[in-house]
């Protein structure tokens, strides 16, 4: 059983939940930009949450099924169609042999996820199937898909359709207010900078990708310029550049950096951030650590309930 990529799309890669434990060697975790979408569609199919999925950008790939199989799409809405017939996101579907999945237009968000039962077979590196484009390892031989590439997977049809509940679907928006925990240099901002950070909107420039988002907006400055020796950074770190503009580090970020750290987007809001693209506008809202943790724990609980509920109703 396999899937055939008939058209590659602009950047289609394999991702699981990431590669952890090697940051001290400069190897970042990679993984999906929208972790919640990848986890939810895997659970819907009865997969391990960490099973390998495809992350697609628009224009998205055209995928041919060489056997009957179930699948599930989540994340961005790219108006998916199976042989011309629209299929919804967040609901398990069944494709028949030789049917083709196409994505007509980008409706909302910038990264759509595709999962099949048992996961997309792919090469693992350091215990993860996520694609590391820099080192050319993991996933589809460390590279994005090209026309004619195939993906091995199990042939499996679900008896029952499974829908992902609303509480699990991130609150996608192209002008979200992202919750932020103060960073190490936040206190060094000027009063004007601090206010601008919390009240202004910042636009993502065209120079925004899986490594990071470059923002354009009101300049933000520290009271006194500060040079830092390199220290660890993470997915969601908001760095301040010398020109007063900011960068948000995303899934393929470098493991260390020396720019002042204004803040970090909280884990629960990273999936919303991960769906942003050039031209989208964001604002920041400062929250406490306890609020950030509570939001993440609530999401973990909802995912756990979904997993149990699915097992009870589908039975496998």
């Amino acid at each position: 059983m396999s899937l055939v990529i008939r058209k590659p799309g602009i950047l289609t890669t394999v991702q699981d939940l990431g590669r952890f434990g090697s940051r001290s060697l400069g190897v970042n975790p990679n993984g999906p930009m929208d972790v919640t979408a990848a986890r939810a569609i895997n659970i819907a199919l009865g997969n391990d949450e960490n099973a390998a999925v495809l992350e697609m950008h628009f224009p998205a790939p055209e995928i041919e099924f060489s056997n009957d199989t179930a699948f599930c799409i989540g994340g961005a809405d790219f108006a998916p169609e199976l042989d011309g017939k629209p299929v919804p996101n967040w609901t398990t579907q069944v494709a028949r042999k030789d049917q083709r999945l196409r994505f007509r237009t980008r409706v909302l968000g910038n990264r759509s996820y595709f999962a099949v039962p048992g996961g997309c077979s792919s090469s693992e590196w350091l215990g993860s199937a996520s694609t590391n484009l820099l080192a050319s390892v993991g996933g589809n031989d460390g590279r994005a898909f090209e026309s004619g590439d195939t993906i091995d997977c199990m042939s499996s049809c679900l008896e029952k359709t499974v829908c992902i509940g609303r509480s699990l679907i991130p609150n996608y928006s192209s002008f979200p207010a992202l919750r932020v925990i103060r960073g190490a240099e936040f206190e060094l901002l000027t009063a004007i900078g601090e206010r601008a950070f919390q009240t202004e909107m910042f636009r993502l420039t065209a120079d925004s990708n899986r490594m990071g988002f470059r923002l354009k907006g009101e300049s933000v400055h520290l009271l006194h310029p500060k040079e830092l020796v390199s220290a660890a950074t993470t997915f969601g770190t908001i760095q301040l550049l010398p020109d007063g503009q900011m960068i948000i580090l995303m899934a393929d970020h470098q493991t260390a950096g020396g720019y002042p750290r204004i803040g970090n987007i909280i884990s629960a809001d990273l999936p919303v951030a991960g769906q942003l693209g050039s031209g989208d506008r964001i604002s920041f809202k400062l929250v406490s650590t306890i609020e950030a943790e509570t939001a993440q724990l609530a999401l973990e609980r909802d995912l756990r309930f979904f997993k149990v509920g699915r097992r009870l109703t589908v039975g496998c």
Partner: protein
Amino acid sequence: MRIFPLGDNAITVEFGNEVSLELNQRAIALAEHFRSNPFAGLIEAVPAYASTTFFYSIPKVKERYSEFPTAFDAVKSIVEDAIPYLSALPVHESRIVEIPMTITSGTAFDLDVVAEFSGLTADEVISIFLERIYNVFMIGFLPGFAYMGTVDERIAMPRKKTPRTKVPKGSVAIGGCQTGVYPLGSPGGWNIIGRTEMEMFDPNADPLCPLKAGDRVRFIRA
């Protein structure tokens, strides 16, 4: 010393903000202590120049240390408890790794500008560079990119204002008081003074990199 959150699932202990062997050894010792004695929910401990960052799973820490109001408070307390004993923690034995390098006009693109910067001849720049043993402070920027130092002040030419779009794999470079080897072809702003054939990062090797934080390095002529 400062301890601050790096987002909601990581905490950084910052011993200072300078390139110093002493601060770096404390950062490495703290990371190694928790690698050998991990707390429940620890994902990884990552040392940098003068800081150590701990990544953890919020639900796992909360479950195990439920007496704390937040996972952050729990990890902060665990890490703080270890810090007073840092000086007593064994420093891992530092090895000296030799990196053979070639210095030719085809590899040492910036040797002449470094010589001009320092008012020395190219030969003098190289002999000053080869004299020192460098400490590996941390690995970051690229997989396997070791930040080493410190470079003799006379040849410590600052990084370029405009980075090269493509620095060849194996390039040995000076960036201010730091030196490093590009493990992969990549953009980069440091001044290139030679090249090594040594693999600084091999995804199929174990270990992935010949260097780790805390090692010492001597460059020799190939």
